[in-house]
């Protein structure tokens, strides 16, 4: 694993530029978030294709639906907390229920805004979006998967929610990796326990597996970037071939990846589970990395959860 860390927003913005170069229908729309969405270069190159709608998320999402109605492929770029929380009904009605060809890009999701506090944390967005029909919800793990997911979203005719972070992550996936929505990717084979992670937690789950490997426990690691539609088959296999599942996500333990995996397991092949994520309380003040450790999302703690599950009866 390359230890160098990368902000996936850079990969997102670069790929969006390449796509916009190839397809004049692609436009970007944001809520006074040109900088935080890394759209500065896009705006310089195509000022007429970058719509800064101002601080108005409900309107932003509705306008995106209208742009799609007019034949455009809008990429809505906004902090995930505001995009999903403020405009949830527009996402449901104008985008998903109207089958609008809009790509919702939730930036700086999870705990990324750290010390700015729970108003800016976006640890509810999986829960809110994955219950909406006709909406693909995916959270890439590194810059390679980000690039490929953005490219996939542009050619897919339908609503997508891409959940992106600003927290640096190492390269995990090979350059020739082929992103497929709704398909988990096995990063490590093992039988003791399965770690199912996505987004910024994939690298931590891999480190947790390394720790347990040194104790003679071979662990499976799945990158489950897409939480809707969920790869139920991968969950069932993990449930039957290993001793249980530990889910890892930068999201509330309620309603996110852990919830989706639990739903799949409980209704097909019940297994022991542990859910690693943000517990159901608002965060204290602290940086993003401090908060992740505070909430037990360090590799050591994830490994401990796996160890405990293996030895539990």
């Amino acid at each position, binding site marked *: 694993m390359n230890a160098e860390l990368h902000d996936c927003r850079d990969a997102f913005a670069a790929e969006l530029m390449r796509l916009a170069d190839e397809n004049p229908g692609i436009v970007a729309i944001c809520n006074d978030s040109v900088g935080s969405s890394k759209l500065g270069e896009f705006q310089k190159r195509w000022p007429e294709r970058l719509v800064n709608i101002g601080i108005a998320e409900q*309107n932003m999402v*509705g306008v995106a*639906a*209208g*742009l799609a*109605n*007019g034949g455009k492929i809008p990429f809505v770029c906004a902090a995930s907390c505001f995009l999903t929380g403020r405009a949830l009904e527009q996402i449901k*009605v*104008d985008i998903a229920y*109207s089958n609008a060809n809009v790509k919702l890009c939730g930036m700086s999701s999870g705990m990324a805004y750290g010390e700015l506090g729970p108003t800016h944390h976006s640890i509810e967005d999986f829960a809110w979006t994955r219950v909406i029909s006709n909406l693909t919800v995916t959270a890439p793990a590194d810059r390679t998967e980000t690039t490929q997911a953005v490219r996939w979203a542009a050619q897919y005719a339908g609503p997508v929610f891409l959940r992106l972070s600003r927290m640096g992550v190492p390269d995990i996936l090979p350059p020739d990796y082929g992103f497929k929505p709704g398909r988990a990717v096995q990063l490590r084979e093992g039988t003791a326990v399965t770690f199912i992670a996505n987004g910024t937690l994939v690298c931590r789950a891999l480190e947790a597996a390394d720790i347990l490997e040194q104790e003679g426990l071979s662990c499976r690691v799945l990158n489950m970037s897409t939480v809707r539609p969920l790869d139920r088959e991968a969950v069932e296999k993990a449930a039957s071939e290993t001793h249980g599942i530990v889910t890892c996500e930068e999201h509330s333990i309620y309603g996110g990846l852990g919830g989706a995996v639990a739903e799949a397991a409980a209704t097909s092949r019940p297994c022991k589970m542990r859910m690693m994520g943000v517990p159901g309380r608002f965060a204290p003040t602290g940086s993003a990395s401090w908060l992740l450790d505070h909430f037990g999302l360090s590799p050591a703690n994830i490994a401990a959860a796996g160890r405990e599950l293996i030895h539990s009866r």
Partner: protein
Amino acid sequence: MICDAGTGHIGGDLSCADILATLYFHVLHYTPEHPENPDRDRFVMSKGHCAGALYAVLAEAGFIDADELSTFMAPESRLNGHPSRIKMPGVETSTGPLGHGLPVAVGAAMAAKMENAAWRTFALLGDGELQEGSNWEAAMAAAHFKLDRLTVIVDRNGLQQGAPTETTNTLEPLANKWRAFGWETTETDGHDIDQMMGVFDGLPLKAGHPSCIIARTVKGRGVSFMQNKVEWHHKVPNQDERARAALELERAKTS
């Protein structure tokens, strides 16, 4: 339709029926056999609860057979209680929750402007729904982006679900609110088709500005016992009321 379905929003249907008729048979360009024709004018029915009136007009315009109107709100019908883009041809965006139509219309008008396209965008808004803040976010943006091929028609019947708008959450001075947001605004009688045609023929009201037409209407228009009665927001006529209403509307048509 409403009597057979046993549900609907007859008061608001009747207040906007003349506006819809004027739009579909004098203003809008569309090809019912190709509802997704990229050059069509876009019409957004923001007051989605008045789907009944919209379906009647879409049938008359040729998007669906008139026979299908009898399936209104029946199981598996395309004629959902609120218009659905994924079910019904001619519906540009699904509506129902209020305050959704104008942002979508703004986006469509923006797409047309980017392409220098000739097609225009219209949105019909209820007056009560102007209490939703999303409308004003969209109104602000439409003026900022100088969307002069966008027109809003406000069905100003003065009543919302439970009470007059002015005793619920005051909308007046409504025209000046739109003007303050940068819209060229005029008022018309929303039941005087000749007057409305004249206003529509003069669009845009002012180059470089979106147009707002406040159409003064009567909820339950054309049926004496429904007119301006709050309870007829979504009351369903019984057999006797149905017959009387039909008679009054038929008389109005021939007079």
